[in-house]
């Protein structure tokens, strides 16, 4: 399936700038974005990962993790073969950072699978890798299926305008807060901290059910001052916001 991407601007000739996330990749004709999900084809940005899923399974919602959202329910889960951050500690880099096998799951087929396997609660999680790099697919699906609860498990790395367009369709989110230092986001993730904090604030303001995940990596993002800064940031938003402190497992690349 082919779908023109949203959120980009044309520069001179056929060069364009992707405006979906704060990376603002500059793409000449034929170039692929840093997320490996969007490609400049003759001056038009295409979502080349549209409807292509790396995995499709039925999970307990606790596994997302979401602990305060329909506890014990089952949720169909799938994700694209792409991500817009490049974390040195990625726990599933085989499907987020490298080419992996995908299967096509059209929005119509996805609707059928959800109806078949989650009949007691129509809900779907876009997860495993980075769903925000599946922007058009998720937005198309959500618009056509307002009765299905949409869950995103995400790094929260997106620009304000596309986030604002997507949020009214989203029921619940788990956003990764990877650290409280800009230097960690810059050196370990090739991104920036502030857009993530800004988007967490926006999700709280929009009233989406939100939980946060912090992957603790000993010696890298667990300095007492950093933990306290994270605690105070969350407490100021809402002291009841659930926080999942997750264990890092060593990876061998």
């Amino acid at each position, binding site marked *: 399936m082919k779908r023109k991407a949203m959120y980009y601007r044309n520069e001179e000739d056929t060069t364009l700038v992707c405006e979906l996330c704060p990376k603002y990749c500059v793409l000449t004709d034929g170039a692929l974005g840093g997320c490996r999900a969007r490609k400049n084809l003759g001056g038009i940005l295409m979502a080349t990962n549209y409807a292509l899923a790396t995995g499709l399974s039925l999970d*307990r919602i*606790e596994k997302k*993790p979401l*602990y*305060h*959202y*329909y*506890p*014990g329910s089952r949720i169909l889960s799938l994700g694209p073969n792409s991500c817009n951050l490049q974390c*040195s*500690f990625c726990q599933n880099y085989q499907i987020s950072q490298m080419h992996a096998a995908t299967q096509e799951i059209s929005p119509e087929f996805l609707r059928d699978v959800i109806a078949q396997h989650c009949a007691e609660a129509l809900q779907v999680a876009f997860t495993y890798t980075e769903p925000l790099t599946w922007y058009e697919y998720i937005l198309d699906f959500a618009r056509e299926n307002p009765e299905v609860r949409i869950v995103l498990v995400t790094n929260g790395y997106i620009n304000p305008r596309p986030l604002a367009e997507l949020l009214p369709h989203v*029921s*619940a989110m788990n956003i990764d807060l990877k650290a409280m230092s800009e230097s960690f986001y810059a050196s*370990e993730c090739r991104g920036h901290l502030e857009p993530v904090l800004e988007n967490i604030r926006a999700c709280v303001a929009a009233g989406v*059910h939100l939980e946060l*995940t*912090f992957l*603790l*990596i*000993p*010696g*890298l993002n*667990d300095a*007492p001052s950093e*933990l*306290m800064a*994270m*605690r*105070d940031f*969350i*407490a100021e938003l*809402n*002291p*009841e*916001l*659930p*926080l*999942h*402190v*997750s*264990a*890092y*497992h*060593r990876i061998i690349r």
Partner: protein
Amino acid sequence: MIAPATKTEHIASAIKVFKESLVNVYGGNLPVSDFMDTLCRSCGTRLIARTHGKTQNFLNGEGSCPQCGTKAYGVYA
């Protein structure tokens, strides 16, 4: 990047810092089932019991504590 794997003790001590101001803090991705239950923020009653394979929900219909009636954060019905 070379970093040692996170031990349960690391998670436990971080959770202690977070709980100074936050109500719902959990440990994840651990071999143990500690740090997984939800307790009432007012009276401490166990509201949701979790293990790696099972969730038991003791909340009243709309998501309030069966003992003191305090509403739990979240969406339950």
